[in-house]
């Protein structure tokens, strides 16, 4: 049954519930090995000004093309809806995909998304036929607004990009999961450990998007594999249904027939 348990993103169904970034790896070769070990079939990338002194951008692009993964271009670094819309249009032409990971940063200190500009950009992009995956905070009302303008997928943060702090606010994330039970929800950003990814999947999130935790580990290939297993394990646990936690102890071994009972 789990073999058919794909991740639905608009009209596309992915086999893997783990999406990975392509940045910060020690080399294009290590990036390729890590993507393969992650089992991901959707990877993020960006558009940037060329640096003629650095040819690694072209090498990475070649490796990304060879990966066969579905591409998810981002609008990282944009600070207004207009910048993000322009960059999304440029990405669609070059990468030949309607998917866009919408990022509009509101504050450079913690790279927190700007909720107002994100909604504005999402509304325009949806009208232009984009499949928008908005990076957003864990604010329930913001998520509601993004759904109202037509987003079919939401990507609330676990914690700020690159911090590895995990799920900062499980209460808010739970509320979003419970309030929008049929929306594809992906935790994007802040995941530092496989256990954190697993916890999010156990909560019922549909997928995990991460980059730094794999790319900056000592062995990205091995860490990618660890995350792949954690995401699968968490998903399986969610589907199986977690027991309810209790305040008091309850013996698991049957009490009836306990040896030495009343022998004092």
């Amino acid at each position, binding site marked *: 049954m789990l073999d058919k348990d794909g991740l639905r993103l608009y009209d596309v169904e992915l086999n893997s519930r783990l999406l990975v970034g392509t940045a*910060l790896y020690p080399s294009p070769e290590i990036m390729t090995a890590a993507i393969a070990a992650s089992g991901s079939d959707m990877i*993020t990338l960006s558009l940037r000004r060329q640096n003629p002194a650095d040819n690694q951008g072209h090498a990475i692009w070649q490796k990304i093309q060879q990966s066969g993964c579905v591409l998810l271009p981002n609008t990282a670094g944009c600070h207004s809806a207009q910048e993000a819309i322009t960059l999304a249009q440029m990405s669609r032409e070059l990468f030949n995909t309607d998917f866009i990971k919408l990022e509009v940063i509101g504050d450079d200190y913690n790279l927190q998304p700007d909720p107002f500009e994100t909604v504005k950009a999402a509304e325009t992009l949806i009208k232009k036929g984009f499949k928008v995956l908005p990076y957003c905070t864990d604010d329930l009302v913001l998520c509601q607004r993004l759904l109202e303008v037509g987003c079919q997928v939401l990507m609330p943060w676990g914690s700020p990009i690159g911090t590895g702090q995990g799920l900062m606010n499980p209460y808010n994330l739970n509320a979003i999961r419970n309030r929008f039970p049929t929306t594809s929800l992906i935790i994007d950003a802040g995941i530092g450990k496989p256990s954190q990814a697993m916890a999010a999947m156990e909560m019922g999130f549909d997928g995990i998007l991460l980059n730094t935790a794999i790319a900056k580990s000592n062995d990205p290939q091995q860490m990618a594999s660890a995350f792949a297993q954690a995401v699968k394990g968490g998903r399986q646990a969610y589907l199986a249904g977690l027991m309810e936690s209790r305040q008091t102890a309850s013996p698991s071994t049957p009490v009836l027939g306990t040896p030495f009972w009343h022998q004092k």
Partner: protein
Amino acid sequence: MKITINGLAYELTEPKHGDPYSISQLIEYLQKPDNTAGLNLTDVVIACNQTFIPRGQYHNTLLNSGDTIELLSPMAGG
């Protein structure tokens, strides 16, 4: 004609025909070995003054002095 490409000031020699450069002509110009500034123009997309210029409009989008061009290429991203 002075324009900015990716944040750097760039001076184009005036076109001989006297008409303004189109984006197509700018690309042709930058592809000449002496003018490329090291740019690889294989997989690029262009915005002019923060407006996306689709490939099909390169020939009829004309440049003005002072225009700001973004010439972007695929890069790693998270």
